[in-house]
């Protein structure tokens, strides 16, 4: 029973991260594209307002992922977050300045003021996008962990495979964000967003292929797949949905392209999570030091109670977030910026 609970929780843990990447991912993408696609203040305001009503709720997926790590895998929470001290705090600082920038930017009519917060939005979006990729790629390949704890630092994490992970995540989110802007923005901004989505797609394809190959050489992620070939269906979904992004882009079906991109992100996260199982924070010194779903979990009682909580509330959350998403799905117009509450 305990084993099954840990097994379920491992994949719920993966699901929460996947949903965070899928939802806040396009916010990061929009923020990272701000200086490139936003030619003037109107463009920039359209871009920011395209994610304005949704980014805050999206960001809570991160808190939930962190919270369930704490509850369901306290040992992992303790070791992972203290080991990744500097990168995690950089991510948090970035998220702080991103969040306040949306609120502060429009409060004073001054070009310098707006430029300051535009820069903060850009940094606050790019830094987490890259660092999440770097951190997860390093988890996939294993970390210098022994009986005395973790022996790496930020520089250690910036190894070739780690950097590749960072680039991959950034491209995912750029593509996801560009597609969102293709849906939500009008006129020339829309055209630029579509063309950005079309170009970034090739980069994403190239880096994805490179990542899949590098994963074979740098990580043990394929072992679970070779043991259970049926699982290859998951990366197959990733490949098909990534191709689907391009297909729908060419058909100018931007909603479908966005959903294909969402599916790419979720299935790619699952591809990695399945390969990682049962490890959560593996040691590359000796596997006896690895933290796994089965040696680092909470008690059976906690796992059971949290499972009930999550099974009740996560569907409710998805329900009202879908409602919010539906409410704000329509293309913005320049007139919408006259709305007094707009950012």
């Amino acid at each position, binding site marked *: 029973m305990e084993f099954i609970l840990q097994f379920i929780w491992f994949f719920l843990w993966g699901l929460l991260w996947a949903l965070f990447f899928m939802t806040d991912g396009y916010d990061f993408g929009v923020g990272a594209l701000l200086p490139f696609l936003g030619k003037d203040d109107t463009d920039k305001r359209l871009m920011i307002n395209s994610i*304005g*009503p949704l*980014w*805050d*709720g999206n*960001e*809570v997926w991160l*808190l*939930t992922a*962190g*919270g*369930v*790590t*704490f*509850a*369901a895998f*306290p*040992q992992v*929470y*303790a*070791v*992972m*977050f*203290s080991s*990744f*001290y*500097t990168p*995690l*705090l950089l991510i*948090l*600082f970035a*998220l*702080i*300045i991103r*969040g*306040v920038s*949306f*609120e*502060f930017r429009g*409060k*004073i009519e001054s070009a310098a003021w707006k430029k300051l917060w535009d820069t903060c939005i850009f940094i606050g979006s790019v830094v987490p996008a890259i660092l999440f990729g770097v951190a997860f790629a390093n988890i996939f390949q294993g970390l210098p962990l022994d009986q005395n*704890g973790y022996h790496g630092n930020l520089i250690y994490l910036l190894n070739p495979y780690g950097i590749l992970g960072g680039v991959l995540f950034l491209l995912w989110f750029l593509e996801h964000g560009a597609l969102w802007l293709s849906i939500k923005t009008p006129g020339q901004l829309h055209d630029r967003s579509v063309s950005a989505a079309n170009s970034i797609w090739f980069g994403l394809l190239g880096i994805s292929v490179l990542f899949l190959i590098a994963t074979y050489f740098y990580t043990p992620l394929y072992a679970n797949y070779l043991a259970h070939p049926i699982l290859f269906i998951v990366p197959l979904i990733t490949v098909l949905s990534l191709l689907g992004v391009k297909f729908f882009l060419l058909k100018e079906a931007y909603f479908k392209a966005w959903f294909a991109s969402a599916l790419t992100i979720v299935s790619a996260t699952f591809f990695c999570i399945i390969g990682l199982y049962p490890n959560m924070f593996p040691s590359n010194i000796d596997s006896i030091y690895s933290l796994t779903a089965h040696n680092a979990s*909470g*008690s059976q*009682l*906690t796992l059971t*109670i*949290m499972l009930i*909580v*999550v099974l009740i*509330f996560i569907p409710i*959350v998805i329900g*009202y*977030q879908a409602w*919010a998403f539906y*409410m*704000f799905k329509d293309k913005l117009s320049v007139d919408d910026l006259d*709305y007094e*509450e*707009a950012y």
Partner: protein
Amino acid sequence: MDVVLLSRLQFAAATMFHFLFVPLTLGISVLIAYMETQYVRTGDETYLSMTKFWGKLFLINFALGVVTGITLEFQFGTNWSRYSAYVGDVFGSLLAIEATAAFFLESTLIGIWVFGWQKLSKKAHATVMWLIAFAGTLSSIWILMANGWMQHPVGYVIRNGRAELDSFTAVVTNKFGILEFFHMVSSAYVLGAFFVMGISAYHLLKKQHIEFFTRSFKIALVFGLVSSLFVAVIGDMHGVHVAEVQPAKFAAMESHWETTTRAPIHLIAIPDEKNEKNLIEIGSIPGLLSFLSHHDFNAEVTGLKDIPKDERPPVLLTFLSFRIMVGLGTLFILLTLIGWFKRNRLLESPNYLKIMLLSIPLPYIAIEVGWVLAEVGRQPWIVYGLMKTSDAASPIAGSQVLFSLIAFILLYSFLGAVGFYLIVINAKKGPVLE
């Protein structure tokens, strides 16, 4: 550098900064929801203007509260990993439930409220604000049950070398957490009320938007009066419970050294920790401390001398925090009572309005020192009686924490200054009348 000390400073800085924004969010969201409901019910446009004006200040404050809250959840892992590993099975679930069941709702709905004025019916839009207020309060229940567990751990067993959950019911019905919740949330309502009254007083003193701000003032006044009385009643119950389960904190709150019956309260006292006595004690009221702790003038109250030296909290800080908190709490009741009698002639009471304007910072001070009392008074324990703070920090380099602490201070000072400036200019600008 000492990792424990630096981590404590960092956690204190991050929490206290976060808590400059949380209480206003909790308090003013209820007032705004009420104003918007009045608009829906009466169709009076002044209520709509009020909703939007106070809503604007609320949103600036809200953004700062949200972003500074995120770091807190992760700091248990980054800086207090030994604590997290030891008690995470009990403590972690409370934080996870907070995010899943409450904070999600608040964060999703805030976007709908801000951007949904034309997408929702008036009634639905007002309902969203009530749900935001409700979700914020719900969040604080879980956070305070988590803190309550650190203050008075229940429902756990020591197994597999850590504290494991034994009874979820015991954890979520922990009396300590419930009292903390009611005490804190009503304090937050007082803060929200004083914020609205203070800014209203500013405009009333300038004789501008009189109808708008008189109405705002009166709504906040009733809310503040009821809440400040409630704070005191719960505070009294809370004190009795602290005396029972945290005798060291209670003794330090009153700088009470000898275990005695008919224990007195000194109106003025200066603790001398080194010599384990008070330098001066003036205006002693015999039996009052016994009464406050046990509701019996003859009850015995444990003195600090009967608590091992290494299990005593810093006395002076705990003592002063308690004094300031209680003093201010009493002042809030007085000020709102005076306001009640002056409510129909506010414009003829410029001195009272000036006092109310200058009082805006006071609930902030009261609520911050309240937290200092709760947290410093718990020392040297991170979980009272179960785990010491000195055993709880992460095995990381002090230099890392020093850098992050400096970064926190720089970033938060900057954001605090900007947030303060934006709230001040928008508050001064006054409403746009619909």
